[in-house]
C-alpha cells in the first residue's frame, strides 16, 4: 500500500525521506504491530486495578477483575470515545457562543453580526420572539439560549430538538436518549463508564447515542453561530493543494478548527501586504488553510487550502511556510519538532492547546484584531529567516468551487424553481436522475493510502448517479484531486446526475455544471447536510431514515468522527466506516451497531475496509430505501 494518492504529498514525502525528517508514516511504522487488545477494544483502564484485558480467543481471562465482560468493556470504551468527540465539539460551539455574547454586550468590537438574515432565521428556528428586537438584543438572546444548552436543564437540548424531524424526536424520546444538556451528556457518559456503574452493553450504547445527539447539537450550534458572526458561505472559487504556497510571499497557514481567530486573520491580512513587501516578499501575505480551520476560511473568504489531515506536516517541508497558526483539534504535536528543522514559526493561540516547542500567543476576543496583526507580523519576521536552499514547493494545485452551505444550495435550486426550491431536487430523486445522496465526511487515516478510499468510492457512486456532499478533510481530499470542478462532473458523473448538475449550474449562471461533490464546510458543518435532509423529509412527509441518503467516513481517525458517525446513525443514515473501529472484541456490540440498531433508529453502521465493496453496500442501502419509498 502506498502512503498517499496525492502527487504533492508524495513529492514532499520523498523530500522528507531524503532529509531524514520523520513524518506520521515513519512514526506509525514504528508503532506496528499494534496491541491487539486495544485494536479489539477489550482493554479496560477505567480503574486502578487495571489494565484488565479479555482473551479474545477464550483461553485466558473472560472477565476483568471487577467482572466486566468483553461486551461491557467494549461498550464503555466506545462511549468514552463518543464523549471525547462531543467534548471537542462542545468546546468549539461554546467558544462561538461566548464570542457572540461578548459581541452582543459590545465587549468584542471586532465581532459584529455579519449575517443578520441568518441570525433572524436562527432565532425563528429556536422559537425566540424576535419581533421588535434590535440585532444586538437578539444576538444576546441567541447566545444565552446557546449557553443554556450546555448544562443540565429540564428540557431537551434546543439545538438537538429543533434541527431534526418530529419523527426523530419521537424515536429519541421512546428510547430515552434525548440529551438535556450538552456538557451534562458528556459528564453522564463519564459517570456511567466509571468503575461499577453501567455494565449493560445495550444500555451503555443507548447512553452513547444520547451523548452523540449532544454532539450533533454542538455541531449544529457551531455552524449556526459561525455563520451569524462571520457570514453564511456562498459559492466561492479558490484553489487547493500545496502548490498554493508562494515563493514570493509570506505564507501563513491557518490550522485547526475554529473560525474565531482565523476569520479575523483572513479579514486583516491584506493590511500587512506592504509590511510583507518591505520585508522582501513582493507577493505580500499569502494565507493558506489546513484541515478544518482551512475549510472555514475557504468557505467564507476563498482562502486556498494547502493540505489536510495526515499530510499536514508536509506544508512545513515545502520550506516556504513562514508561520503556522493553530487553534485546536487535529494538530499533530510533531509539527513543533519539524518546524525546528525549518524557519517556520509554529504559533499556538488557545489556552487549552499548547505544544512544547511552539510559540504561544494567547488569543482573546476582546483584542482580536490586534492579536491577528501581531501573529501575522511574526510570520513576516520568520520570512526573513527563510532558507532559499530548503525551498521546494510542489507544483500541484487544483481549481475548486466550494462554499455550498445549505442556504447556498437552496439558493442555487431556487434559480430553477423560485417558489419551491426543494422541488427540483426531489423531482430528480423521484425520476432517478439522482439515485441518492452520499455524505463523505471525516479525516484521512495513516492506515489508508491518503484519499484512496474517498476517490475509489466516489467514482463508483457518482457513476451510479449518487449526488455527493463532502465536509472536513474528506472535502479536502476531493478538493486536492480536482473533484470540486465542472470537469469532474463530465469525467465521473453518470448521465442522469450530469444532466441535473448541468441544469442547476446553468440556472445559477455558472459556466459549467456544478461539481459532482458539493463542499459543505468543515467537520462541524456535517450539520448542514442534515439540515438539507430534514427539509426534504419534512417536505415529503417522511422521516430521514426513509430517504435514499447515506454517509461515509472512509478514512476516519478522530474521536469526533466516532461521535459524528453515531449521530449520523441516530439521524437514520446507513453510515459507512472504512477503518475498523475498536469494537470487534465484543461480537454483541458489533452486532448491535451494524444490525440491531437499524430496528430502533433506521440508521446503522457499515464497517468495510474495501472501498469498492463499501460503495456497493452503500448503493444497496440507497436502492433498499428507494424501494421502501416505492421509487
Amino acid at each position: 500500500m502506498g502512503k498517499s494518492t496525492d502527487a504533492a504529498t508524495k513529492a514532499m514525502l520523498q523530500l522528507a525521506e531524503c532529509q531524514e525528517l520523520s513524518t506520521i508514516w515513519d512514526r506509525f511504522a514504528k508503532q506496528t504491530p499494534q496491541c491487539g487488545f486495544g485494536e479489539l477494544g477489550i482493554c479496560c483502564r477505567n480503574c486502578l486495578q487495571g489494565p484488565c484485558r479479555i482473551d479474545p480467543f477464550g483461553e485466558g481471562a473472560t472477565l476483568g477483575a471487577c467482572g466486566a465482560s468483553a461486551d461491557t468493556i467494549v461498550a464503555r470504551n466506545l462511549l468514552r470515545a463518543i464523549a471525547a468527540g462531543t467534548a471537542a465539539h462542545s468546546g468549539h460551539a461554546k467558544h462561538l457562543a461566548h464570542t457572540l455574547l461578548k459581541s452582543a454586550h459590545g465587549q468584542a468590537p471586532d465581532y459584529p453580526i455579519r449575517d443578520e438574515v441568518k441570525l433572524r432565521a436562527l432565532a425563528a428556528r429556536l422559537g425566540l420572539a424576535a419581533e421588535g428586537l434590535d440585532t444586538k438584543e437578539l444576538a444576546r438572546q441567541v447566545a444565552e439560549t446557546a449557553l443554556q444548552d450546555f448544562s443540565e436543564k429540564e428540557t431537551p437540548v434546543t439545538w438537538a430538538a429543533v434541527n431534526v424531524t418530529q419523527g426523530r424526536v419521537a424515536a429519541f424520546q421512546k428510547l430515552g436518549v434525548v440529551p438535556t444538556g450538552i456538557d451534562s451528556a458528556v459528564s453522564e457518559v463519564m459517570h456511567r463508564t466509571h468503575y461499577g456503574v453501567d455494565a449493560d452493553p445495550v444500555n451503555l450504547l443507548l447512553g452513547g447515542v444520547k451523548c452523540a445527539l449532544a454532539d450533533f447539537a454542538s455541531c449544529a450550534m457551531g455552524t449556526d453561530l459561525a455563520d451569524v458572526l462571520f457570514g453564511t458561505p456562498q459559492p466561492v472559487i479558490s484553489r487547493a493543494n500545496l502548490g498554493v504556497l508562494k515563493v514570493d510571499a509570506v505564507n501563513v497557514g491557518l490550522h485547526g478548527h475554529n473560525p474565531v481567530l482565523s476569520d479575523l486573520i483572513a479579514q486583516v491580512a491584506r493590511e500587512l501586504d506592504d509590511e510583507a513587501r518591505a520585508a522582501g516578499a513582493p507577493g505580500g501575505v499569502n494565507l493558506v488553510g489546513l484541515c478544518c480551520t482551512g475549510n472555514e476560511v475557504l468557505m467564507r473568504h476563498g482562502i486556498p487550502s494547502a493540505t489536510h489531515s495526515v499530510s499536514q506536516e508536509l506544508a512545513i517541508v515545502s520550506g516556504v511556510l513562514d508561520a503556522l497558526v493553530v487553534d485546536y483539534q487535529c494538530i499533530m504535536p510533531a509539527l513543533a519538532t519539524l518546524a525546528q528543522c525549518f524557519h517556520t514559526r509554529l504559533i499556538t493561540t488557545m489556552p487549552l492547546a499548547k505544544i512544547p516547542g511552539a510559540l504561544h500567543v494567547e488569543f482573546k476576543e476582546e483584542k482580536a484584531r490586534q492579536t491577528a496583526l501581531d501573529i501575522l507580523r511574526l510570520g513576516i519576521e520568520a520570512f526573513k529567516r527563510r532558507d532559499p536552499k530548503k525551498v521546494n514547493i510542489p507544483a500541484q494545485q487544483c481549481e475548486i468551487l466550494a462554499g455550498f452551505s445549505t442556504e447556498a444550495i437552496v439558493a442555487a435550486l431556487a434559480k430553477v424553481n423560485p417558489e419551491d426550491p426543494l422541488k427540483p431536487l426531489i423531482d430528480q430523486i423521484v425520476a432517478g436522475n439522482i439515485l441518492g445522496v452520499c455524505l463523505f465526511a471525516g479525516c484521512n487515516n495513516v492506515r489508508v493510502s491518503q484519499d484512496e478510499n474517498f476517490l475509489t468510492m466516489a467514482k463508483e457512486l457518482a457513476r451510479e448517479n449518487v449526488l455527493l456532499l463532502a465536509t472536513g478533510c474528506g472535502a479536502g481530499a476531493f478538493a486536492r484531486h480536482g473533484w470540486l470542478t465542472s470537469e469532474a462532473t463530465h469525467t465521473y458523473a453518470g448521465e442522469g446526475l450530469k444532466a441535473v448538475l448541468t441544469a442547476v449550474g446553468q440556472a445559477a449562471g455558472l459556466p459549467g455544471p456544478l461539481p459532482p461533490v458539493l463542499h459543505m464546510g468543515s467537520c462541524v458543518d456535517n450539520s448542514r447536510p442534515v439540515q438539507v435532509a430534514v427539509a426534504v423529509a419534512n417536505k415529503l412527509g417522511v422521516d430521514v431514515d426513509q430517504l435514499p441518503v447515506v454517509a461515509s467516513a472512509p478514512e476516519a481517525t478522530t474521536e469526533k468522527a466516532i461521535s459524528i458517525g453515531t449521530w449520523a446513525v441516530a439521524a437514520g443514515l446507513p453510515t459507512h466506516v472504512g477503518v475498523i473501529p475498536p469494537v470487534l472484541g465484543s461480537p454483541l456490540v458489533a452486532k448491535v451497531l451494524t444490525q440491531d440498531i437499524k430496528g430502533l433508529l433506521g440508521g446503522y453502521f457499515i464497517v468495510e475496509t474495501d472501498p469498492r465493496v463499501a460503495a456497493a453496500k452503500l448503493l444497496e442501502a440507497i436502492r433498499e430505501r428507494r424501494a421502501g419509498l416505492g421509487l
Partner: protein
Amino acid sequence: MKEIFVNLDRCQGCRSCQLACAVAHSRSQNLFGALGETPAPRYRLYVERGLGLNVPLTCRHCDPAPCMEACIAGALYRDERGAVRRREGACVGCWTCLMVCPYGVVGREKEHKVAVKCDLCPDREVPACVAACPTRALLYREAEGFAAGVRHHAAEVLARSKELA
C-alpha cells in the same frame, strides 16, 4: 539454529506476543478474521508472573526434548531447523507431552483433542511473537549470539563497577 530468547528486564506483560501467535496460527492470518474462527486459534507461548516479573514462557525446543521422548504416538518430530513440531494426524491426545514439559508450554486444542506447541513459525523469517513484541523483550537469535550479547552487557557492568571504584 535460531531460537527465541527472552530479555527478562523488558517484558511489560502486554501479551501482544500471545495474540500474534494465535493469529499466526489462524486460517485468516489477521486478528479480526481470526476472532470468528472455530476452533479458536491457539497461542503457543504464555506470559506468566514470577517473583514480580513478567516472564514470557516459550518452547525451548530442548535437545533431547522430553515431550518428543515421551510421545507414545510418534507425533512429535524435529524439523530441519531443529524445531520440535507435531505431525498432522498423529496425535492421540494423551497429554503425556504436556505432563513432561518442564515449562508447561505444550497446550491442548479442545476441539480436535490434539496437543499444540510452538513450531517457530516455519513460514516466517521471524516468529510472529518476536515480531509483535513492542519492547524487544523477545529476541530471535542463535544461542551463541544471544550469549555473546549477555557477555558484552556483563562486561560493561563490570567495567563500570571498576570505573566507579
